[in-house]
């Protein structure tokens, strides 16, 4: 059984469990699934700086901060006790494209050639961590939600604005992965 759990899970299993998060949160406390709000609560908690957008009672949404703390702890548990002994399986066509950019290490779930502490102070680190992270934080709040709040919770609740937001997430991602990143990889 443990051997089975240690294997990478099928997309249908993952999709089912993530989908079930929606009714679970609703049933245990009328909470709407959404992760990016946690970033806003952290701002409201730590650095509100008298900005009106952060002047609200974040303590009332402490549940959301505990939820993301849980995600962090869950990842530690899965990585420590349930980790897959084999290397990650990635589509051959993706591997071929990434090889052109020098990404060849599949020993971990993330490419060690990018997500490495030694890269933090390099141009590569600036692009993948600082620039990328900034866009995620800025964009999700501007859009009013992320993959969880819009794409899963919003579309599940048949919200047209969420469908539009999701199409824009995908459009931005297609542009980024196929146009912007190949260009940046050439420079770095």
């Amino acid at each position: 059984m443990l051997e089975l759990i240690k294997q990478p899970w099928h997309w249908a299993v993952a999709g089912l469990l993530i989908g079930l998060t929606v009714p679970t949160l609703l049933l245990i406390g009328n909470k709407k699934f959404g992760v990016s709000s946690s970033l806003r609560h952290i701002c409201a908690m730590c650095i509100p700086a008298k900005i009106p957008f952060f002047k609200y009672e974040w303590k009332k949404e402490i549940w959301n901060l505990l939820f993301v703390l849980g995600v962090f702890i869950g990842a530690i548990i899965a990585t420590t006790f349930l980790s897959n002994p084999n290397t990650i399986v990635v589509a051959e066509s993706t591997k071929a494209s990434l090889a052109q950019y020098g990404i060849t290490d599949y020993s971990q779930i993330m490419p060690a050639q990018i997500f490495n502490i030694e890269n933090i102070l390099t141009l590569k680190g600036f692009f993948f961590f600082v620039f990328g992270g900034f866009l995620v934080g800025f964009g999700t709040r501007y859009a009013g939600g992320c993959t969880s709040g819009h794409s899963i919770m919003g579309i599940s609740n048949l919200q047209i604005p969420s469908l539009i937001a999701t199409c824009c997430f995908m459009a931005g991602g297609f542009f980024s992965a196929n146009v912007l990143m190949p260009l940046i990889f050439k420079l770095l």
Partner: protein
Amino acid sequence: MENKESIEVRHQDAMCTNESKQSEIGVFSNIKYLIVGIAFGIVFVKAEIISWFRIQEMFRLQSFFMYGVIGTAIIVGMLSIWLIKRFNIKTISGEKITIENKTFNKGQVYGGLIFGIGWAITGACPGPLFAQIGSGFLAVGVTFISAIAGTWVYGYFRDKLPH
């Protein structure tokens, strides 16, 4: 702080607001969310959703995996919400379940495109960000701090941006 004003502020640019009652803001009464979060984090890692490789496959249309995950999650979520509404199911404490409707604004387009670009670069939406750090990729801590900074800068310039 005027309470009503605080609630109005909170509703800005949020898919939904989820304020708990005053009696529920302690850490202890919220432990159940920590447990759901832990389960969620385990799924993220075990299905390799937090992997930067999976996101590259998705945006290069070279694997069905992420489409399968998100598609299944939406179908399950949709069915669940339909059932909850259809049978007027209450929360475990007997509260009525309410889900606000969302109105369109241009932020969903501009912000959506910006987030999409960042999603492909970092290989993470906000949820997986927490899980990537938990998986031991400490460099993602920089991404996380930068995402908080991005949210903060958005809050600072919010009034000047088109909505």
